[in-house]
């Protein structure tokens, strides 16, 4: 028989411990699920080909080598020709992937394009979002739906016509073509985020600013812009990540080495059977670092920026 004073306490303590246990277990599982594959990617990139092709696989590199990364970073100076091609990893017969020296320029391309898209995105979206969210003009609904409707058609459908447009404008193989394309791809979503956020700002502030003498542009600048930081950060992040990530359009619109972006070059490696596994993994690590770092750094803003609309359903 439990003492009358004891009933509740035991159960409560048990519940607390049980909850703690469950949370720890699930958290651990989540961490493994999320970080595991990436950890494996990193680990593979730090192994030599010989280690990597061992069976059973080595979880941790038995000997950490930066050889793959060296190959990437130093290859810019060395041209891969028939004579020099055998200077890679011994395990693969020392073949260097013939596109190895393209990785760094491609990295640079991806980076520049991403930056431009992120910046232009904010400029273009903010004005449109303000107009749609704040100015109650006729055709406001129609404008919004039209903008969102451009994303209904799958990208693949748009590639060929887009290529023709770019060719007619003599913009094939330019970063400009990519920037403009990615703008069109990302703007609908950023506008949506910004509109949701703007609608949360009290309307009286807008009325006060207008009464104080603000034109629309001034109201945007003095009232809405300062109060929308999280949404702006979320938009910039989203724009940069999307264009860093983007594959199909880049595949078609950039056909020469000089203008290709990172995903294209990496996919080239994967297709090239002479590429060593560890090298491909190293390339993958390089591609993954910038977006992940950015996402982690701005996590708080991303979440609160995205949530303004989502909370309302």
């Amino acid at each position: 028989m439990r003492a009358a004073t004891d009933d509740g306490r035991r159960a409560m303590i048990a519940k607390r411990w049980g909850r703690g246990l469950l949370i720890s277990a699930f958290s651990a599982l989540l961490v493994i699920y999320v970080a595991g594959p990436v950890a494996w990617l990193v680990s593979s990139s730090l192994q030599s080909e010989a280690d990597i092709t061992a069976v059973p696989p080595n979880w941790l590199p038995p000997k950490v080598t930066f050889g793959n990364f060296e190959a990437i970073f130093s290859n810019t100076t060395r041209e891969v020709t028939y004579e020099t091609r055998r200077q890679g990893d011994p395990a693969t017969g020392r073949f260097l992937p013939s596109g190895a020296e393209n990785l760094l320029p491609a990295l640079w391309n991806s980076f520049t394009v991403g930056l431009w898209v992120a910046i232009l995105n904010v400029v273009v979206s903010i004005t449109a979002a303000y107009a749609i969210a704040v100015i109650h003009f006729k055709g406001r609904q129609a404008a919004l739906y039209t903008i969102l409707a451009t994303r209904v058609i799958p990208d693949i459908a748009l590639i060929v016509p887009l290529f023709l447009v770019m060719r007619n404008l003599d913009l094939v193989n330019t970063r400009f073509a990519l920037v403009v394309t990615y703008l069109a791809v990302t703007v609908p979503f950023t506008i949506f985020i910004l509109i949701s956020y703007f609608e949360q700002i009290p309307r009286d502030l807008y009325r006060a600013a207008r009464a104080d003498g603000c034109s629309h542009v001034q109201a945007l600048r003095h009232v809405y812009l300062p109060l929308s930081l999280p949404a702006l950060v979320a938009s910039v992040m989203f724009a940069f990540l999307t264009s860093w990530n983007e594959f199909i359009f880049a595949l078609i619109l950039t056909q020469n080495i000089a203008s290709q972006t990172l995903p294209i070059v990496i996919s080239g490696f994967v297709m090239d059977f002479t590429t060593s596994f560890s090298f491909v993994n190293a390339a993958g690590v390089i591609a993954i670092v910038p977006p992940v770092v950015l996402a982690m750094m701005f996590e708080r803003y991303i979440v609160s920026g995205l949530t303004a609309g989502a909370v309302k359903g």
Partner: protein
Amino acid sequence: MLERLGRQFGYDERSAALLVFPVFAVLMVVAVYPIVYSFYTSLFDIVLTRPWRRPFVGFGNYARIFADPQFWTAVQRTTVYTVVTVSITTVMALFVALLLNEAFPGRRLLSALILLPWATPSIVNGLMWKWIYDPGYGLLNGILVQLGWIEKYIVWLGDPDKTLFMIANAAIWKQMPLAAILLLVSMKSISNDLYRAATVDGANVFQRFLHVTLPALKPGLMLVLVYETMISIRHFDLFLIMTQGGPGDASYTLSWQIYVETFRNLKFGIGAALSYVLALATFILSYLFIRGFGSKA
């Protein structure tokens, strides 16, 4: 008369027009024109191997598509893939959101960590999982053999029965975090008072979940389902990197078919028509979801 026009195009209207103009300018060129042109293309029988002859066939391309058994295979593959991806993503996201809704030390860190898959480029995602699935040296085989669950190495991506699910797994890994965040946000807006009332009424954890959490999540769930479906139905990058539609036609989805018809068979008309069928399917599905859940996103 001029007066009426003045009312229509007052200061507000003019400002709005100016502010919205940049967006429309960009979209006109890069989105609207290709969309229209693409639809136009779908009405012609265009094969690039004989560019001189391009007869107008109206909806003939569409008819050919629906009569093509390959198309229906693609539909089946896409359906299986999408259903698996969306359902598992949503369920996992729900659990993760429930976990993150609780307060515990390190939650902040965990929330930041789960963005990792979201930030991973899809090419790297494909490459990473392809390496994990590698028949010779992959991690999956290694683990399973060490655990004693299998005896010899399996060719994961090469097994037609498994292919779609292996690809789906990669997609789920990447998409789940965002879905979890969207659901988490919806959860946070549920008033604490509802939970308190339920507890007082005698509800246990499961009942509270069933009667308080789930109903309030309806709009959030709908948003997640619609978004995930739209994305999964048109997945392409993973298929290009991992299986290229194979083995055989095990992973021959609609997106892949569009790619093959357009860029390998060079049948631009058919490719365009297929795209529109896919777009229409997406649209209809989204509409059904929204109607089914009865609220606006």
